[in-house]
């Protein structure tokens, strides 16, 4: 599969000033901007990094360049939401999509383990929904509270979940706003600190699971975000990352985007 992608990238280097992908370097793997003449053999497909954040930073730094990006399903969904919010210029980006493997889809509980038009890889069957979601959703209230309080009490306030999230591109973050969260407390105040992000994820989260993978306290964050994604789909019929034209409903009036129940 990687050979096909390297070829696609090489070809895209004709029309693009550079292609954002992963590169093996200094004994590890990191995002990189491949440009003409770079050694494509060094390109890798994993471990994953939110490449769309790199695209966004490059688009802002160089208003004229045209980029390609090697993207999985979740990267493309992240791109859709970021383009909608003017963080990436769709006219200056070409997506070189590839499908995840079946195991990756299972591991990520991913519903759409492939971009819309993958250049390589056959889209596997979608992964099962995260079993934890059903489990914690069915817990009685007290158990749910004690579970989440125990989980959040492990939080060391590293802001990793926000830093790694492609959708968290704000200049100033409400989680650092003294009005909402008293600074410098460990663990950060329950429930303010974590619910701010959960609410923002309602109309933005594309389920790439990076937040959960980067949490040093191993808190099952995406259980909350999956529930929020379910709610916004049920209440407002909106699926983040699905359609670049669809405006996120929370900003619109009831006429423009009615409540479904």
């Amino acid at each position: 599969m990687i050979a096909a992608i390297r070829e696609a990238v090489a070809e895209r280097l004709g029309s693009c000033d550079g292609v954002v992908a992963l590169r093996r370097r200094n004994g590890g793997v990191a995002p990189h901007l491949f440009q003409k003449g770079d050694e494509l053999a060094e390109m890798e497909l994993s471990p994953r990094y939110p490449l769309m954040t790199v695209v966004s930073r490059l688009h802002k730094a160089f208003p004229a360049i045209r980029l390609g990006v090697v993207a999985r399903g979740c990267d493309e969904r992240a791109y859709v939401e970021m383009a909608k919010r003017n963080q990436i210029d769709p006219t200056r980006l070409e997506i070189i999509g590839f499908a995840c493997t079946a195991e990756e889809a299972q591991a990520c509980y991913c519903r759409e383990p492939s971009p819309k038009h993958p250049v390589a890889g056959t889209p596997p069957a979608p992964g099962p929904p995260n079993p934890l979601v059903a489990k914690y959703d069915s817990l009685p209230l007290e158990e749910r509270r004690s579970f989440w309080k125990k989980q959040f009490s492990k939080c060391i306030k590293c802001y990793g979940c926000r830093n790694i999230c492609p959708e968290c591109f704000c200049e100033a973050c409400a989680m650092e706003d003294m009005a909402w969260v008293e600074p410098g407390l460990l663990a950060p105040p329950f429930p303010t600190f974590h619910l701010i992000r959960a609410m923002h994820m309602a109309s933005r989260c594309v389920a790439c699971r990076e937040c959960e993978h980067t949490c040093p306290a191993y808190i099952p964050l995406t259980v909350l975000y999956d529930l929020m994604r379910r709610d916004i789909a049920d209440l407002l019929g909106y699926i983040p990352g699905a359609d670049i034209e669809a405006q996120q409903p929370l900003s619109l009036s009831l006429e423009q985007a009615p409540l479904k129940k």
Partner: protein
Amino acid sequence: MTNSIPELETDSRCILIMGSNTSEGHPLIASRIVKAKERGARVIVIDPRDIQIARLADMYIPFRPGADVAVLNGLMNVIISEGLEDKEFIAARTEAYAEMKAVVEKYTPERVQEISGVPADMLREAARLYARNKPAAIVYAMGITQHTTGVDNVKSIANLAMLTGNLGIAGAGVNPLRGQNNVQGACDMGGLPNVYPGYQAVTSPDAQKKFQDAWGGTADTVVGLTVMEMVNGVGDGTLRALYVMGENPMVADPDLHHARHCLEKAEFLVVQDIFLTETAQLAHVVLPGGAFVEKDGTFTGTDRRVQRVRKVVNPPGNAMADWEITCRLAQRLGAGGFDFASPKEVMEEIARLTPSYGGISYERLEELGFLHWPCPAADHPGTPYLHKGKFSRGQGQFHAVEFKEPAESPDQDYPLTLTTGRLMFHFHTGSMTRRSEKLHQEVPEAYVEIHPDDAARISFKRGQRVRVHSRRGQIELDVRVTKRIKPGVVFIPFHFAEAAANVLTHAAIDPTAKIPEYKVCAVKMETIGVKEAKSQGPS
């Protein structure tokens, strides 16, 4: 650390954490412990403060600061009296067990309870938990070492590990968590008055000869001065010059009034740093060094893990990487052997002269990412954990250690015990973290943690500040009232020069290690006027 960090997650069946606020001091090691807990490992936390790591512990044992040896001896007392010790390991690989056993037998749980405040049955349960779940790792940090009885504490920990055969196997060991990114490396590289690189003693003529030949000249075989002695030295004139690189004694040293007094009298003080720290402001010459992203090199982590540091940007203005400054200065003094083109070449010289770093090179690091020393040869894979099969000194030595009171205990005048320590959001004297906007905004200024009972005793009201006095000085601070600390104990982080905890601490030091007793001193507190009522939130 005798063992490596990943083993905590993969192999340890019990982790005893004593004197380490792991979540704040070593967050990603705490992360491994969180994972280990999920795998079923048992966690015991012994600390005067109910720190965050304690919240996921199976057993949390608060105790009186300074009573570490008593608690450790108490644990060993229970293990021996219930026959849980590893008799085979003791027989085969240790010596002087009898003397230690004789001392330990005096520390019955009841006596330990009286000394340290740890309930007897809790002590018994903890001892059984540690002994019965092998391999068991002991993790500790400055909470153990920064005492006048620091060396005794560490010896007791070693005793406990050897008693239960928890050495030389994966997931076990005696694991000091070194506080700084390269404190292990600095020690390895001979940054100590008593050893050459690789812990080759200065007092050994062979070592002296080795370096004499290698360098064309070296010092005599008399152990040099420690930090504390150097500071006192410039104070009383025995030392005429002091060259400080990347250190800030004006905030880090104990008894800061004394330190300021001495440093101000230094005849010639050179400070090489990246900021004009409190110490640099007193210097005669200040040399602008480079930050870690402005130079190549290696750091050695707490588990003897050597990893590369790579240059990302150029130093600002005319600042220069520290290794270049030292080389230029040496050449200026006419010394040979300092014309290195890059740190890579320096490492090659280190590998030649330091047995434990023998097999370490930039090429290998580029490929493997890291290497654990000792790594004697170029094909050696490195040593994740030490003392496999045999102790480097031959037989593991037990030490008979008696409990000694800390240098200064609370009394009527100064009824509270002050302990100092680290915060998650800051690092050491704060010269870097307080200049990082995202860290500064979390904890912009110093505070003191006090128990509600102590707060009530001085009729403290929300929004008020307090003044903390010790026999050495006083500072004013914000207050955080929390149940997560033992009544009678107060905690102050030492990152804040304007309210330096070390103004209060005393300079009494451990006789052997000469490490000051930051963790225990006696203070008193009084409330002062209300600072503009900050919304403290529902603390």
